[in-house]
């Protein structure tokens, strides 16, 4: 039996993530199980894209899900969607892990990072998820090369902007602005409103 990857959004029936997080905040473990079903696929996918190592990724994904449970009482819907809250926690944790792990050894294979592509090609049977992937891929293609590299290195590999600048041999200020205007272009292409 294949377990579905749910990505939330209007297509999913039943109570939405926001509502469920409200129930989780009151200690409802059954609601948490539903939250798990909605967020675990994206959380694990994102963490894995940053950390690469499957065992470590699972460990960090677990930490993220525990944090969702613990801090659900602090989730504020007025500040963003439930999925954004969860994936922000996930990205933050993955980034913290990758930076602490690599602080000493420094990233050995920096050049290899450039060749890594985000795991858009991971196998998934879910139609919802494939459509999301297609749309993101299409919008990423509308970015300039420098925008694309900056955004994907920062997001999918978890690099700090200083590392991005070093890796791409461009000034710090340039990376800051490419991260911003790259995301703005993606926002408009994807039709995000928040």
């Amino acid at each position, binding site marked *: 039996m294949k377990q579905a990857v749910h990505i939330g959004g209007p297509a999913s029936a039943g109570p939405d993530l926001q509502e469920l997080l409200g129930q989780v905040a009151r200690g409802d473990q059954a609601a948490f199980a539903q939250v798990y079903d909605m967020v675990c696929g994206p959380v694990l996918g994102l963490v894995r894209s940053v950390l690469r190592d499957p065992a470590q990724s699972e460990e960090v994904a677990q930490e993220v*899900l525990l944090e969702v449970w613990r801090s659900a009482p602090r989730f504020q819907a007025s500040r963003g969607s439930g999925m954004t809250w969860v994936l922000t926690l996930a990205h933050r944790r993955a980034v913290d892990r990758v930076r602490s792990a690599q602080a000493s050894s420094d990233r050995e294979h920096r050049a290899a990072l450039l060749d890594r592509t985000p795991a858009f090609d991971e196998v998934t049977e879910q139609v919802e998820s494939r459509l999301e992937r297609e749309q993101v891929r299409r919008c990423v293609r509308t970015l300039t090369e420098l925008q694309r590299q900056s955004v994907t290195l920062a997001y999918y590999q978890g690099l700090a902007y200083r590392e991005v600048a070093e890796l791409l041999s461009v000034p710090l200020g340039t990376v800051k602005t490419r991260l911003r205007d790259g995301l703005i272009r993606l926002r408009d292409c994807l039709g995000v409103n928040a």
Partner: protein
Amino acid sequence: MSSTAELHTLTGAYALHALAPDERAEFERHLEVCPACAQEVRELAATTTRLGLAVAVTPPPALKEQVLRRIATERQEPPKVSRESRGAGGGAARGRALSRFALAACLAAAAGFGGVAVWQHQEAQDARARASDSQQRSEALAAVLAAPDAKIRTGELSDGATGTVVVSQARDKAAFIASGLPKPPGGKVYQLWFNDDGTMRDAGLLDPSASSDSVLMAGSVGEASGMGITLEPAGGSPQPTSDPLALMNFPT
């Protein structure tokens, strides 16, 4: 210290967690006084969410069981705004949360107590067969616990011990988790039963020497409306020989 104009350009790096810790702290102070940046950060964070969704994977089924088990023993933080939890409604809300806790604590129950265990047949089998058997059983167990239709019920067994049963009608399987169950007296074992309308059907033994804390009940749920647990002579019995320590109806 950065100039304000420079700070405005950090929304993207901030949303991507790409700032150094000191710059991050400085930008967060700026966010409190700059609604334009705060709004832009919200939008860009929502945009990164789409990037995250695009790399979703199918998680391994066992992960769900692990996470659900861990949250049941994990305290939640108090909400930032505490007024809702005070006053008249507070008590009721707390009561509901606790009973939900008791019910769903299921997946967790045994974690802290090291109670129960994977059932092994008494018949001698060679070690290899047993290993692959127990592997198959733990996969089946994970499948029951993670089944979308899984229903849960927790009940008292005896002084302080609780038993939790998880039933998946779709898989026609049930799992049992005990916590705080004392070691059986010498020469005795705990045996599980399906309750087929008053007739007890063997559902395997709890093996106190095994390390797992949840057990897949042997056999299919079928028409059973509940389960029971008894103390039996070592090796188990074809029929219960003692009064049940507990009988539980399956959740519906």
